[in-house]
């Protein structure tokens, strides 16, 4: 099968891909929703890479983020709640030629789909996993999610969310993630660069995106200032956002250093950038496809010989 990374249109192809061709209907999201920025970044990335939309599949679960595939004119599967990863794995095993992006919210990925996330990361099958983290359930009207900050009031925990949140990047590194990065919807340059690094990664690329929810949690994520977060960068990492690089701290961090990666992921301070990468982790999809390549040829007729009496 052809490599996933080399499907750019041949030079001189008549019509290069543009954002316009990737648009479908008007998204049914609230005004100011961070999801707009995320799908725009995906489209910009596809245009930059000239990724053929017919070779690209967006797979999602349920929630506001679940609608993302509808608004990108590629192939798409809007699956059931929490189960985008199993569907994406099936596609990957069946069609190694396709580019696969998974769109999943914090509830979808870490709550109902938590088991699949652990095993998707561990199987390390080739895909870009984008976690839309608005830190609550929005489509169902403001309930506490696994990443809701402690004390934040929701419809199910009206006196304030009871528990400390799960830290997605820390979890992803902890269960053996081979690519763990974090970015935010309001820094398009960094978001696109992160997607590029994720797409180039040979395995399961976990991309955490802090996402604004102006409807249910307008005070979360102060996107107008930048002193509250830092960028992680490195020659093997992701460059800081071009617009914000000189407005906040930029930390040199070698993404092959897992110990430091944990430290930054579990810090009280917010870090954006590439936390951890191991390009050599074995891929489940590759292993299974190699089994086929290496299997001796046989026929059903000869298999029946084993049952012969």
């Amino acid at each position, binding site marked *: 099968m052809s490599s996933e990374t080399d499907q750019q249109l041949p030079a001189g192809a008549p019509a290069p891909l543009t954002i316009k061709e990737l648009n479908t*209907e008007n998204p049914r999201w609230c005004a100011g929703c961070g999801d707009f920025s995320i799908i725009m970044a995906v489209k910009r990335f596809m245009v930059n890479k000239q990724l*053929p*939309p*017919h*070779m690209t*599949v*967006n*797979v999602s679960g349920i929630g506001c983020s679940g609608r993302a*595939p*509808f608004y990108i*004119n*590629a*192939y*798409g*599967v*809007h*699956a*059931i709640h929490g*189960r985008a*990863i*199993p*569907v*994406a*794995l*099936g*596609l*990957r*095993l*069946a*069609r190694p*030629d*396709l580019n696969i992006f998974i769109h999943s919210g914090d509830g979808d990925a870490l709550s109902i789909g938590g*088991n*699949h996330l*652990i*095993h998707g990361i561990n199987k390390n099958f080739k895909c870009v996993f984008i976690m839309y983290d608005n830190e609550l359930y929005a489509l169902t009207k403001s309930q506490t999610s696994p990443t809701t900050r402690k004390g934040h009031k929701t419809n199910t925990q009206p006196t304030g969310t009871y528990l400390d949140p799960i830290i997605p990047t820390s979890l992803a590194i902890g269960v053996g993630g081979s690519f763990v990065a974090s970015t935010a919807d309001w820094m398009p340059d960094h978001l696109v660069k992160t997607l590029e690094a994720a797409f180039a990664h040979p395995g399961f690329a976990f991309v955490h995106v802090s996402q604004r929810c102006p409807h249910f949690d307008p005070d979360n994520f102060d996107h107008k200032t930048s002193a509250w977060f830092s960028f992680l960068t490195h020659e093997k990492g992701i460059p800081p956002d071009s617009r914000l690089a000189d407005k906040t701290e930029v930390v040199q961090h070698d993404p092959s250093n897992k110990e430091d990666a944990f430290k930054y992921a579990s810090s009280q301070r917010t870090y954006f950038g590439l936390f951890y990468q191991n390009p050599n982790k074995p891929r489940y999809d590759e292993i*299974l*496809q190699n*089994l*086929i390549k*290496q*299997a*001796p*040829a*046989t*026929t*059903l*007729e000869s*298999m*029946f010989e084993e*049952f*012969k*009496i």
Partner: protein
Amino acid sequence: MSVEKCHVSRFELLMDAGFGAQKAGDILIRGFAHTGRYVYIEPMFPAEISPPIRTRAALSGVIVRVADFDLKNIGNNTDIIVAQHEIVLDRRLDDAEHNPKCRVLLDMGDKKANEEAYENACKRLAKLGLTVFPFDITEKAIAVIKSLSGKGKNMYYIGMLSAIYNVAEEVMLTEIKAMFGEKLEEDILNKNIEIFHCGYDYAKIHVPFSFLIDEKYPAKEERILIDGNAALSMGIINAGIKLVSGYPITPASSILHTLAKTFPSFGGVVHQAEDEISAIGTAIGSYFGGVPALTATSGPGLSLKQEFIGYASVAEIPLIVVDVQRSGPSTGMPTKTEQSDLPAAVYGSHGDHTKVVIGVGNVLDCYYAPALARYLAEKLRLPVFIMSDFNMANSYKIIKKPPVANMKTADDIPDYILNHFWINRLPDKIEMVRTEQAVPGTPGKMRRVTGLNTDSTGTVNYFAETNQRSHAVRNEKIHHVQRCLKEPELFGKVKEGDLLVVGWGTMRGPIAEAVHACQDQGLSVGGMCFRIIYPMPLILNDIFRRFKKVVTVEMAYGDAYKRTPLAMFLRTKTLVDVNPMVCRATGRPISPLTIRERIKETIKEMGKT
């Protein structure tokens, strides 16, 4: 040793789990089969690996039916029991599946330490009127067994049963060597063979009776000995399916085991998922990518998969689900059989959704079913079920080597498979909810699928008319199937008359055998078993009207107030007063004898009213 000639005989070997009863069964049936006898074997084993020995829970055994005619089921009561000790014997006698003349060969090896228990067991046998032949494994054999750390008694019993059924020693030796030759070191293999000879010699001298069953089937015909799950696995390859996903569950796991070794040679992937839901999701993902996929499970897994099943129906993604039924509800009895998953298969997922359900009744059905399932799933773009059960999955049977179709596309399905399931080819054009059904990789046809309602362009739509249309289009797919279904085969010569006995899946063999026997005695009774259980053929009413009374035989619970699943479906479909005639959820198959007796009683009762 006297020799009784007979056409059919059934014996049981009862042992503690972990001592090789299943292996012994395998060796014995291969020996019988190689000498031209028909066999059918049903294994009995606990859900646990090694329950404490000498307990009732430890019973692991095989029931073997041998005949000089083609066998379609495990048959009636047992003629010979060989038991390792009194406890497994006592446990099995509870099932009351022995003949009044059944002969019991009881190993007295454990008697010294359990005098009273042995006496009680013998008293029970005497009360039941069964003849007991107590025996001790010879000292020579005991010494060899000791050197094998207590293992090898099964070889002794194989020897005894070979002598009792007049199978030459060389025949069984070949089978023993074929089974263990590569697995055991030479001196261990030789010790096992020595024990076998001891058992054989012992029985020749000390067992006063033996049976001789003619060698019947033509030597020229190529035949295979295969169990339901292996046949299904071969059928999966034959159907051109390229991805099989599952989560370990009894009794479906052996499909994964069989394919794991061979599937890559056919370009196939065996995927063991992290859970049941993931397994079905992966099959759906593969099929959306245009690569035929199947997920195999059993009852508890079916419950977990239900949301995705409804999704596949609405998103119009083809899907094949195998449900090897076991005794439920909940965890139930994992190594016992039942047919109670039918409503969960037909109506399981929430909301109105559509699917086709195939029920397999013999190993040939198992082999052909994946091809039909693929054809229907892809033509209709909906989930198709293959319903098997524990007994079907684990029972071996000899069949003529079946033809190979090697399907590349759904349309490659041969007519003989469609005819086998009594269905005509579907019309070329079948309307879908969404007009465009392109597979990823097709330029210019990009589309998104969803579980939300959509219009014919695939755009999400919550309007009344559109939703009603989606339902109509989905249901019309099933109506196409109904219109293509032909009249199912009626057993024997009775096509109209007093009583019609209806079943599905593995009840076919026992019903057919019982109905034929009753017809031979001049009773006006017909029999019928569905191979496609949902939807049902339109012609059903016409068939039912030709009989005064219609009843079902089902391995499912029913009583005066609760109707069994099949009876319920048939009533709804035909408005005929269908009731279950035999319905049991005991975990044991229903025997032809039981059905025969109930047929006679039912016809007698009908005469009175």
